[in-house]
């Protein structure tokens, strides 16, 4: 177990392992994404209230759910950086911040498009919108702090602390705004019952889309992390070998 753990911390090991993972992830994403998108856009029945606009949900919900997962992930990676000083964890933490900011921005944008159709307004100071907006600011803060500190080691630790503080704050922000103003509907339950408000024909494609976007997120994270590995390890022998091999091909 510990051997595995320390191995996982080695950037080279991760780089080589992710080489093997990536093709499978690409295939999985293509399959899930095409099945999910086609099903959601062409075959899901129209909602009796929202009509065609219900299809925005199949982009909005996956993107929003991932944007919520990014901050805890960054905090966990930060904790590992602080406790075990694992290089790879900080590379992941650094890579996840811009992705998290993008996904939060996308969730806000797709929500605005949906909201324009359903609520009749692009923006409302509703609880979930506001807490997502503040989470977006928190991501920007982490990215800004990272780019402001020159020493890589100090930046890693400082961002780890900010990520942990932010992650403790995210639920507090969420509950305080929720309680301040709520327009957003609560998440609906998944139900197997075909006559329930949410029959399987509605939520199965949603689950497929969620997993597709999750795989996409993992791919993006791995690619960013691999870039980071190459950049930081550019003086180590295995990277030099790798680059010279690529050049000769």
């Amino acid at each position, binding site marked *: 177990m510990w051997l595995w753990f320390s191995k996982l911390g080695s950037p080279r090991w991760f780089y080589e392992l992710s080489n093997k993972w990536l093709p499978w992830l690409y295939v999985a994403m293509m399959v899930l994404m095409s099945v999910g998108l086609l099903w959601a856009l062409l075959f899901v029945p129209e909602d009796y209230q929202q009509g065609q606009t219900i299809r925005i949900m199949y982009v909005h919900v996956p993107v929003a759910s991932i944007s919520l997962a990014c901050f805890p992930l960054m905090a966990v990676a930060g904790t590992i950086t*602080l406790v075990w000083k694992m290089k790879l964890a900080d590379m992941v933490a650094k890579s996840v911040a811009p992705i998290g900011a993008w996904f939060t921005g996308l969730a806000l944008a797709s929500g605005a498009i949906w909201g324009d159709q359903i609520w009749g307004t692009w923006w409302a100071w509703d609880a979930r919108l506001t807490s997502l907006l*503040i989470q977006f*600011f*928190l991501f*920007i*803060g982490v990215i*800004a*702090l990272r780019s*402001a*500190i020159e*020493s890589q080691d*100090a930046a890693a*630790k*400082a961002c780890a*602390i*900010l990520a*942990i*503080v*932010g992650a*403790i*704050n995210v639920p*507090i*922000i969420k509950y*305080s*705004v929720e309680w*301040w103003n709520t327009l957003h509907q609560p998440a609906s339950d998944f139900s197997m019952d075909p006559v329930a408000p949410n029959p399987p024909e509605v939520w199965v494609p949603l689950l497929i889309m969620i997993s597709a976007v999750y795989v996409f997120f993992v791919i993006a994270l791995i690619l960013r992390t691999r870039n980071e590995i190459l950049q930081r390890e550019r003086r180590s022998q295995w990277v030099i070998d790798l680059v010279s091999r690529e050049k000769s091909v």
Partner: protein
Amino acid sequence: MNKPLSDGAGSDISTWQAFCATLKRDLVIAFKRKNDLLNPIMFFLIVVSLFPLGISPDPVELSKVSAGVVWVSALLASMLSLDNLYRADYEDGSLEQLLLSPQPLYFLVLAKNIAHWLISGLPVVVLSPLLAYMLYLPSEAYWTLVLTLMIGTPVLSLFGSIGVALTVGLGSRGLILAVIVLPLSTPVLIIGAKAVTDVMFGLPVGSHFALLGAILALALTMAPLASAAALRISVN
């Protein structure tokens, strides 16, 4: 009081003594630099007086936004004065002495944060009824405003301290401090301003105070730890 760990010369004072000494030192320094003491208060006054100019002199409209205006201005005033918290100590090296001292850094940071609140937060709390009056806040909400600020501004100092500790070694830190600290302060702002607005509508506010108190308790116990860890990273 626990007997202090004695691991060398000069460490024979208790944590409590070190706490008091740090608090006293910061207050003395602040009172010797009258500008640092006055600037946050003046800033608070000026920002609050800008709002009627920008919105409207109409009492009805102003009384609607008064709670939020006072709260946002208090938040900005607290943030503006944060830079004094560790900056001068960082530059003259006394921050390093603080980090090297055998006493737990948690209490020293807490003392500095309390000093910062006494200098920048408390005057804002004391002045707030006057400004609330100028903004036509209904008189039944005065006490709620003062009390929420009383509980809320220490949280602003404690959270802000984390941001300053993270950025103290940086050259250009003014804006990045705001980007880091302001989003963290939103729960306090929301609950504090909401409590005052609810009182104006005759709604019960006990739960708001309970939440603010809970956030203060959390900030008191956790934030100095994060500040201490951040200081150890920034000072290297």
